[in-house]
């Protein structure tokens, strides 16, 4: 019901969004697109844990479908080399009413941030690189759904 993908390729958020609308069952469609922030010339590399990533995305999607009224949904997470402005992650949910669509999309993102095995490595234009640190705020956001 909420289809998930892990891929290196770019995705077409527009086409994904259009596919979820339906023909009268959904009153609300919420999408979240996560984008690479950074100055021109910087890059972001996303590493992930093949196999576990797919399992976790499906588990998170299943939990969302159980907690909220979700008619259709979509989760796409990219890995590999990305540039500022590139889309990293896409979450979209179609629901009868807007409360469930907003809640489910936000839940998916909050859980993805803390439960999907991805790691970001940022390289600045001058060539220095570092692994992005996990944010306490992300754990707090995820904990609100416990």
């Amino acid at each position: 019901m909420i289809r998930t993908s892990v891929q290196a390729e770019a995705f077409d958020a527009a086409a994904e969004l259009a596919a979820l609308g339906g023909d009268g069952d959904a009153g609300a469609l919420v999408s979240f697109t996560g984008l690479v922030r950074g100055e021109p010339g910087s890059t972001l590399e996303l590493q992930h844990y093949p196999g576990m990533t797919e399992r976790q995305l499906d588990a998170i999607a299943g939990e969302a479908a159980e907690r909220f009224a979700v008619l259709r949904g979509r989760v796409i997470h990219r890995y590999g080399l990305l540039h500022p402005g590139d889309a990293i992650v896409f979450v979209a949910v179609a629901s009868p009413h807007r409360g469930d669509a907003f809640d489910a999309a936000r839940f998916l993102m909050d859980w993805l941030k803390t439960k999907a095995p991805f790691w970001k490595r940022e390289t600045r234009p001058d060539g220095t690189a570092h692994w992005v640190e996990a944010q306490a705020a992300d754990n707090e956001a995820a904990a609100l759904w416990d």
Partner: protein
Amino acid sequence: MKLNILYFAATRDTVGMDGETRDFPAGVATVADVLAALEREGEQYRAAFAEPSCLRFALDQVFVGIDAPVRDGAELGIFPPVTGG
């Protein structure tokens, strides 16, 4: 007891490899035991596992705590807190 260990992100960089299959002696029963056994093997492990509270673990691709029991043939992932999304 044989384990297939996978390292990711900064942990991978510090250990210096993507992963390894290793035999552990009897008495290595938990994730914590595995870390201790590896730390006896070399400086790269001691550096990578210096702050175990900053590590996360997955057994057969499911998150577990540091006290989780390991079993022969399992896949053990060792990595920093995730930063996707």
